[in-house]
């Protein structure tokens, strides 16, 4: 697994201050994608054990983070490896929230055994491909209107998709 980018403090990928990991590799190839450079699984730097531990340390010792957001690429193409890192994060800092962006839709993720575990490890998943025709710059934290901000815990408990209504607060 490669890491395409890492932002230690971001305000753009979910509420609160969040560390953001861009996992290399995506096969959705959405027309108008903001980051086509990240599609290759060889883009960026190898996400070595050493680098994983280093970022884990930075994130867990940061006093202001609300959580971590996985971006891409699409982390769900590297779901098993991501899940292993997120498990360690969860163990060290259960108070942090985990968000993930994906071009899959949620229903695809939970029915695919290779992607279920990572889905369940997330608090929130912003799902669906970027559709240029549905682009809307006024939407918080996402690019096109088809994309949903899914509250994973409630969705699993209620057995029906529950999206979050995000105001600034």
């Amino acid at each position, binding site marked *: 697994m490669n890491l395409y980018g890492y*932002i*230690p*403090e*971001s*305000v*753009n990928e979910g*509420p*609160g*201050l*969040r560390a953001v990991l861009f996992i290399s590799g995506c096969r959705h190839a959405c027309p108008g994608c903001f980051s086509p450079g990240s599609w290759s699984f060889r883009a960026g730097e190898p996400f070595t054990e050493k680098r994983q531990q280093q970022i884990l340390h930075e994130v867990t010792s*940061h*006093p*202001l983070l*609300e959580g971590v957001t996985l971006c891409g690429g699409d982390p769900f193409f590297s779901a098993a490896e991501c899940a292993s890192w997120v498990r360690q994060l969860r163990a060290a800092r259960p108070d942090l929230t985990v968000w993930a962006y994906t071009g899959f839709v949620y229903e695809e993720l939970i029915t695919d055994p290779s992607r279920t575990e990572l889905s369940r490890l997330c608090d929130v998943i912003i799902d669906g491909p970027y559709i240029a025709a549905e682009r809307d*710059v006024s939407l*918080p*934290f996402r690019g096109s209107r088809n994309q949903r901000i899914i509250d994973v815990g409630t969705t699993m408990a209620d057995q029906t998709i529950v999206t979050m209504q995000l105001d*600034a*607060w």
Partner: protein
Amino acid sequence: MNMLEYASPPASDLLSDLGRRIIGAEDADTLRENANLNGDSFSGKMSRLGSETAKWHALRHVLPKELALAVEHGDLYVHDLDQYALGTTNCIFIPFDRLLASGFNTGNGSVRTPQTIMSAMALVAIIFQSQQNSQYGGVSANKIDWDLAPYVKRSFRKHYRKGQRLFGEIASIEDEQLHLVSDEAKEKCPRAFAFACEETELETEQAAESLIHNLNTMSSRAGGQIPFTSLNYGLCTSAEGRLVSRSLLEATIRGLGNGETPVFPQHIFQCKQGINQSEGEPNYDLFRLAVTCSSRRMYPNFVNVDASFNLPYYQPEDPDTIIATMGCRTRTLADRFGRNRQSGKGNLSFNTINLVKLGIRYGICQGARAIADRAGFYTALESVMHNATDGLLHRYRIQMNQPAKASDFMMREGVWEGGEQLAPNEPVADLLKHGTLSLGFIGLAECMTALYGRHHGQDLHVHREALNIIRTMREFCDRMSEQHNLNITLFATPAEGLSGKFTKIDRERYGSIAGVNDREYYTNSFHIPVYHSLPAYRKIELEAPFHSLCNAGAISYVELDGNVRANTAAFQRIVQYALAQDIGYFSINHPIDRCPSCGYEGVIGEVCPGCEAHENHVHFQRLRRVTGYLTGDYKVRFNGAKQAEVRDRVKHR
């Protein structure tokens, strides 16, 4: 350039040289020394001509020789040198409560105490305008919510009485019972009460909106300079005071005529635990609104009433003891003569020391020595500080000798407390002693790099030594205060006109030294350099301990990239972390770009996200902060060094 060369050309040469540079607009930096002044305008040029001539006169004929030489050599900087010989003073916190309650005279006419919030807020603008011609620096309202609350009440009474007539509710009720949360007023005449509440809210909102418009449109100093106005508020918990705060914030969020960010006034939200910092506290909603406003408009800034160095002065029964700042950062709360409160006084003047030059002379950066000459550094620092202090004292004597009539409105109306008792020709004398004389500094970061090869953001040992330098300076100021029986304080200088001047002089003398003077500017005060990347919380932690040492004022910023307006949770957490670290005054910088085609406000790269207009075809306005105040489009109004600093700002994210 030595002193002789500088002093020798006859005045006609100076004038023709100035004429060429200013009238012919050859020298952009001379014209843009102050981002708030339109140096390209006729009146701006006229003002620069006077100002440059006055500086030359002061240097040649007025300053003590030692001081003039130190200025020449870039050891220190005398701020607002053009005002030195005149004896003008710097800035003030205005006692709006008293001026509004007693009425005042602008010189051309007298003004009665206002009967409504609408006229009170109009008078606030007029007072700011009258006052700012008495001084050269900022004008600040230190508790505008408390100052204006009584006029909200007056408006309410007026609307209530009108409501009684309109709805025929004739029950008799005393004036004292008429206010926004009066049960008696509500029970006796419910329709009049509802009417009065609604009308009062509307009127206050409109008054706030027009105040903000007024403060952005009244160009009164020469050069179309808009007064540097600041409004502090946030602690008044009466319904009327809260309405003032809320209306000011909401009007600022709405913006000016086309929704654009107002450049003035600077807003400062006063933060106090138990009043506005947590859920359940009476003004927590206002703090949240202030955060929302700041995430859109870059202010309010946040001043920390709970800081260890502010709290001892705070007396809940006297709102004049709540810490307030000039927008830039100036703090003048304490007074060795007992006026430990804000209004009716301010800063008198300040001189700034070039720490970088000392670092170059005694550090390792020139390769002359392997270890920094620490003893040499402190000896030289002491000598520069003495020189700077002598300059402050010399200037203070000039200021004391000015007749009251020279600062006119300020003394006649007692804006400076006690001035109202002076005859026009009487010197202001030691009435000024309640103000502060401040010693400032710039470039601690480059100084440390010059001394040790690393700055205080890179190395904890260097950080400890950096703190030691600033502590030494503070102890010197305290010593001088005792010796001269004056309020001599240490200032984390806001360095606008100054940010490139020392750099230029030092580069001419020592050549370009990597990491020290190879940029166009020196880093502001004790800040971790804007080009050094580190997490926001680390910047806060590293800068926090300097705040308690700088008793004349300091500010810390963090830079955030991206659209903060959609993420006020992050914004609030960072602000409250800074307050918890004992930072006195704090703000978050983030880009506010505006597309003139579609009105989109937020972050704009090359292409507008709203309408896809391209930078090459449309001129996006890019609002940034300089020395604490906002300024319009930074590519037009910033000087060269400040533009370079903005380009170098690393986002903490």
